[in-house]
């Protein structure tokens, strides 16, 4: 007979082994590589101390990518949050057809990102893409262009792709949290004469607080680490206009083969996310106590 304690350990062992070998070990090894000049095609790896980090401090594309990563993450998560709330509000109304709407709206979240990128690349084509057909139909002939190839529009267009994929997920998640709020709270507030805005601010928002914290935490991490939207849509172009850190790391590693340098940028990403994670957990914990 195995003891209860050991049973628990045995149950989680397979998951821990897989994650140990393919997540935690690679993480440590990745950080170690960041301090070497490892090259994919060259033999002989040497420890070079902080040389990679010194190099990236003066690497202009690193700073552009860092800036764009932060802007992209901040804008995308904020907009997703707001639009998700609006969507959840609409879906919480008991109206004919709403359950049908709820059942199809998350479709954009389940399809492969590569397919999402193709949908939008196709619609952004000059002359034959749906976006340009509509714009021309409205009489703005001179705006006809390849939207992902435009220096100013490319990054906002990437943000749009993120919104397209994730807003329904936010909406559905917030809706689930809203429905867990007891209806009696709202009735009591109504009797006390609270208006719609007050009810939203004092009942709905606190009610979905936990869900909101989880959604924002996860999506900041996922968006900042997201590689495929930018890489598949533009590869970082035109002229670095959409470069973000994950894509820059990927290019350094698998196009230039400089694994050591790529790993050092990846390590910086990890540090930034750890700082965010710790600060955010601290802040949301403090809110919990009060």
């Amino acid at each position, binding site marked *: 007979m195995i003891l*209860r*304690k050991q*049973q*628990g350990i045995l*149950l*989680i062992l*397979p*998951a*821990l082994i*897989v*994650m140990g070998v*393919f997540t*935690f*070990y*690679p*993480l440590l*090894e990745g*950080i170690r*590589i960041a301090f070497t000049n490892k090259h994919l095609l060259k033999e002989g790896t040497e420890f070079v101390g902080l040389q990679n980090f010194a190099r990236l401090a003066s690497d202009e594309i690193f700073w552009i990518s860092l800036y764009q990563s932060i802007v992209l993450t901040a804008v995308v998560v904020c907009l997703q949050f707001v639009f998700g709330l609006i*969507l959840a509000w*609409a879906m919480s109304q008991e*109206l004919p057809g*709403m359950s049908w*709407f709820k*059942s199809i*709206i998350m*479709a*954009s979240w389940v*399809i*492969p990102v*590569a*397919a999402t*990128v*193709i*949908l939008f690349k196709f*619609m952004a084509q000059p002359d*034959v893409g749906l976006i340009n057909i509509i714009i021309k139909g409205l009489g703005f002939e001179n705006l006809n262009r390849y939207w992902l190839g435009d220096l100013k529009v490319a990054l906002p267009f990437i943000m749009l792709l993120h919104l397209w994929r994730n*807003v*329904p997920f936010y909406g*559905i*998640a917030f*809706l*689930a949290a809203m429905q*867990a709020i007891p209806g009696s709270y709202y009735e009591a507030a109504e009797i006390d004469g609270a208006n719609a805005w007050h009810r939203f601010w004092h009942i709905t928002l606190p009610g979905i607080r*936990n*869900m909101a914290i*989880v959604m924002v935490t996860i999506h900041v991490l*996922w968006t900042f*680490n997201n*590689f495929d939207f930018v890489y*598949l849509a533009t590869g970082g172009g035109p002229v670095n206009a959409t470069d973000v850190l*994950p894509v820059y790391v*990927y290019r350094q*590693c698998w196009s230039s083969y400089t*694994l050591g340098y790529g*790993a050092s940028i*990846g390590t910086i990403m*990890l540090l930034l*996310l750890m700082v965010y*994670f710790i600060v955010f957990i601290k802040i949301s914990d403090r809110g919990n106590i009060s």
Partner: protein
Amino acid sequence: MTKSRRKIGVAIAAYGVVFISLIFFILPMLWIIYCSFRTQSSIFTGVVLAPLHEFTLENYKTILSVTDYPTYFFNSFKIATVVSLLALVCSIAGAYGLSRFKIRWKNAIILGIFSTQMFPQVLLIIPMYLIVFSLQMLDTVMGVVFGQLILVLPFSIWMLKGYFDNIPVDIDDSARIDGCNVFQRLWYIMLPLGAPGIMVAGFFSFVVSWGDYLIVSIISQSQRTATATLVIQRLSSALLIRWGQVAAAAVLTIVPTIILFSFVQKRLVEGLTAGAIKE
């Protein structure tokens, strides 16, 4: 009087949101399905409503019989199935252990699992490539599977733990007193009661694996393991893009995910958010 008028206002606003959402979220998918049945020259006319004779099945015929797409589709299917099964075995056992047993450093383990979400995958993949290379698993199905497992395991465990936490402990306890061992309890109690959550976890793993580009692009080296996702990307970044065929290939790649989605759609929310709604 004013109350019913306010209700009408709310309904109009809500339907407005629904209408805009349908256009924004659903129309792009309908558009690519529509265009996948048009000839290349029909698409290039830039006309929205094409005349009937411009519709064709040629794009699908070409993708399915002239190109290697079916091979890649089958690879995707094989890889995603193995990933889901392995992820389910590991995460059901793991979530059950974390949900029901006293384990030393349990909180640290849970935090550790959650914190993997902040590890940059582009950093992990550098050593992962070297590990897979030294295990001689480059360009093998298992190599891709192990790489993708780390994408799905943490979230899957976290989600299932939340789901299992919501199943009353009493049922579990009384079965233990009746003499059921740990595997019997897992098999006869947690699996049936947790089935909706398990379905969602399996669905999540399948969809993530099916849609993965990063890991396949590194570990796959040839036709043996290249997936549909990889190939539609290649088709759509060719110098001369045949949009009709790209659209057909993209639709074929989307279809399995949508079919599975239609099965779990009712449970999806419940399952995905179980970890966050507890209190």
